[in-house]
């Protein structure tokens, strides 16, 4: 009977101020969509790091005038290094062949490259791509090496772009969250005012605090939950309509977003939406309903 009373009050509360409730749900849903997008991007970047780092290699370009002895010395050092998982030696001819294959769509560029323009190199895969600095230190100063290039640096730029987008989404999420939570506060304030007579009587006859506050807090949580469902719908639609549709080209760069990650957003957003709204509502009550 108490539960029935509380749930009934929640429904009445949501309906009483329906336009405000809708405004709050929309604001919260935008905030939560951004939060969800940001979380998805975070998971995505982690996954892409795993994916790309597995393929990444360090190129050691050799000088024009390298001697056989120097080359053999480098080879031996690489073989001996505990950091190296795999190494491949690439001659000038192989480098040219690879270059021609890679740029077969631009014949003028291919024609401009003479057979001895491209240097010979070692292509090295490290056991741990993050150990690049230590690896370069080991090879530093060894004669015959012209340049050591870490592909990770190129990827790093891509990841930095993702991080910036992620940060932007988080900033938008926080700004919208502030707006949403202020609306929650406002709704609870209006609700507390319109129920002031009931609240006064409840306090007078000794209703417990939680019983007085529960309908208000649950009202805020229900609205927050509705907002999070909208946000999840938005994310889902975004993936189906944008990433799987017109923006599919992006997926050549990005690894695909697994459905599991997307579904993981549902409990995350629901908890964030209902939790923060509930807390915001409860804090508002502390100011408006005194024992």
């Amino acid at each position, binding site marked *: 009977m108490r539960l029935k009373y509380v749930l009934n009050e929640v429904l009445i509360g949501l309906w009483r101020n329906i336009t405000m409730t809708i405004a709050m749900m929309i604001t919260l849903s935008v905030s939560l969509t951004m939060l969800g997008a940001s979380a998805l991007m975070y998971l995505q970047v982690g996954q892409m790091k795993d994916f790309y780092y597995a393929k990444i290699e360090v190129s050691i370009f050799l000088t024009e005038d390298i001697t056989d002895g120097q080359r053999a010395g480098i080879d031996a050092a690489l073989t001996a290094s505990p950091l190296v998982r795999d190494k491949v030696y690439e001659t000038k001819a192989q480098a040219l062949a690879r270059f021609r294959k890679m740029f077969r769509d631009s014949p003028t560029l291919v024609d401009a490259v003479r057979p001895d323009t491209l240097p010979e190199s070692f292509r090295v895969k490290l056991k741990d791509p993050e150990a690049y600095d230590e690896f370069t230190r080991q090879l530093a100063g060894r004669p015959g090496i012209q340049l050591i290039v870490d592909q990770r640096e190129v990827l790093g730029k891509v990841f930095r772009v993702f991080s910036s987008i992620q940060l932007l989404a988080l900033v938008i999420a926080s700004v919208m969250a502030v707006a949403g939570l202020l609306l929650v506060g406002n709704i609870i304030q209006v609700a507390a005012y319109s129920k002031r007579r009931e609240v006064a009587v409840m306090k007078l006859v000794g209703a*417990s605090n939680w*019983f007085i506050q529960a309908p208000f807090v649950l009202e805020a949580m229900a609205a927050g939950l509705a907002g999070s469902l909208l946000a999840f719908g938005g994310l889902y639609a975004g993936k189906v309509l944008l990433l799987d549709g017109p923006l599919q080209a992006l997926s050549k760069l990005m690894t695909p977003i697994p459905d599991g990650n997307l579904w993981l957003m549902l409990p995350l957003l629901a908890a964030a939406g209902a939790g923060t709204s509930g807390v915001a509502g409860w804090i508002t009550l502390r100011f408006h309903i005194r024992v």
Partner: protein
Amino acid sequence: MIQLDHVTKRYPTASRPALDDATVGIEKGEFVFFIGPSGSGKSTIVKLLLHEIRPTRGTVTVNAEALGSMRSWRIARFRRAIGCVFQDFRLLPNRTAYENVAFALEVIGKTNAVARRVVPEVLELVGLGGKEHRYPHELSGGEQQRVAVARAFVNRPLILLADEPTGNLDPDTSIEIMRLLDRINRTGTTVVMVTHDSTIVNQMRRRVVEIENGRIVRDQPHGSYA
């Protein structure tokens, strides 16, 4: 039952204390009037007894509980032993007489079954049998105050506080309400009534505590308003 020991209550904006070093004890089953002009500090006593405000100095003890050291979560349970009636009735306008009384049971977790048994009983006791389904605006002032008394009494409180309960009523209706409070007092409930209605005090001849400028100036066992 109720004990105020050297209680002073000072409101932040007021120049003099609302209650100044007041000491008074009330036994179980007593009927006590607190009288005095407006602003003398009568209503402050009601607020102190309900633990709506805390004394600036001194101690308030109700039902053997010192209110000063009471934890906030205990307040709700403490108030269930106290019924309260006010000058402005404080009924919920969108609820019937029955629902207003049942509300007091509902919000402290009593079941519908309990309400169905107890509420008609108490409405009968206050003389509102047959008017259970009227809304407050369909009732006279006296009847509304009876509903308020029924709501205050439905939990069988140990103490009934009445803050100017006849303030909005004509003399005849006031007497009816006083008879009702007297009946409730005879069931063993301690009744504390704040009033400046001299006719009623003079008719009832009960204990009178007079307050003036926050000080207790008279405490008489069978007093009159004078």
